């Protein structure tokens, strides 16, 4: 009896551990994870690497000014609470999107900055994609440049990573495509003139030459969804942050590049 029970317990244990392994079979192995940086030409890589040539650094300078500027009813700046960003914010962006206990949901860096503004500065939140929010996010994320993305250590984020994965793997839009069909199954192959990257959000907000400016991951996701002829999620939709969280978890270990340059 006891031996059979033990066998059953072991089978159950195998069943439980094998199920996630089977589901993860199509995932890109850690050793093959590559940033979009590796898919770019030599000139663009040089542009990103040189702080004097990377146009994203102009926004980082804007963000530094905003970090030290007092704002809102409280008349406090970011620096009044957090101190100097190079020490206080180092490695923070590598952990975002992170779980917010107050709302019981994950929040991304843009939302965290706006929460800080409303709760501690008594200031109106910045609009998504506004020059101010992009600049401040870029400045904070730049302090983590070179640090490996470390999302998913918090067990409270697990259900949201799973929800993000479901969005990533779900077919949607008039072309009936999922994100995974391009970025898990066909990365490295050509889609018209462009190489399909693995879709790791390592350098956001990033400077895209096509945009002639800095843009957020939300904007990039909206671009992708429109390309799939699917209806983009609204900026406040929970799916956006779940997708961002899953993408960050999927890119864990890759270094932060903010502000990256992409074609």
């Amino acid at each position, binding site marked *: 009896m006891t031996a059979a029970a033990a066998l059953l317990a072991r089978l159950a244990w195998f069943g439980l551990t094998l199920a996630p392994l089977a589901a993860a079979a199509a995932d890109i192995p850690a050793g093959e994870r590559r940033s979009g940086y590796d898919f770019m030409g030599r000139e663009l890589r040089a542009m990103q690497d040189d702080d004097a040539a990377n*146009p994203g*650094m*102009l926004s980082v300078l*804007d963000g530094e000014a905003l970090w030290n500027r007092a704002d809102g009813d409280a008349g406090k700046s970011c620096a009044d609470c957090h101190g100097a960003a190079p020490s206080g914010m180092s490695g923070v962006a590598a952990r975002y999107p992170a779980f917010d206990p107050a709302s019981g949901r994950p929040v991304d860096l843009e939302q965290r900055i706006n929460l800080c503004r409303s709760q501690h500065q008594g200031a109106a939140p910045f609009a998504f994609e506004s*020059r101010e929010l992009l600049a401040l996010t870029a400045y904070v994320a730049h302090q983590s440049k070179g640090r490996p993305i470390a999302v998913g250590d918090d067990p409270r984020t697990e259900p949201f990573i799973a929800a993000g994965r479901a969005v990533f793997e779900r077919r949607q839009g008039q072309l009936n495509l999922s994100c995974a069909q391009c970025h898990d199954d066909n990365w490295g192959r050509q889609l018209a003139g462009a190489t399909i990257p693995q879709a790791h959000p390592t350098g956001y907000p990033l400077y895209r030459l096509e945009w*002639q400016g800095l843009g957020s991951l939300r904007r990039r996701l909206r671009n992708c969804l429109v390309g799939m002829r699917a209806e983009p999620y609204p900026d406040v939709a929970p799916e956006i942050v779940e997708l961002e969280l899953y993408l960050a978890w999927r890119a864990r270990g890759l270094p932060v590049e903010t502000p990256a340059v992409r074609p």
Partner: protein
Amino acid sequence: MTARTLISVPAGAKRGEVVEIKTLISHPMETGFRVGTNGTPIPRDIITRFTCRFNGEEVFSAELSPAIAANPFISFFVTASESGTFGFEWTGDNGFSVSETAAITVE
């Protein structure tokens, strides 16, 4: 927000050495050929001229056109002859004018 600039000039150089100067400035470079969502044309707003002076004497200049991308990056080479100060000036539409300086020490 004011226009941001990023200027890269080597702090020191040997006499006669050729050094690279790199400049970057934030500017939308609106061409004047686009229309807004309501169909009205967006007026042209570009930088029209960039000048670099060394100790007051012009050493490099460029005319910019509507086909140049936002946040223009201009790099050029000069021969280091003596210590002094570079003066950079960007001028353009709607009274746009930004000046910056950078010093170099030549041994």
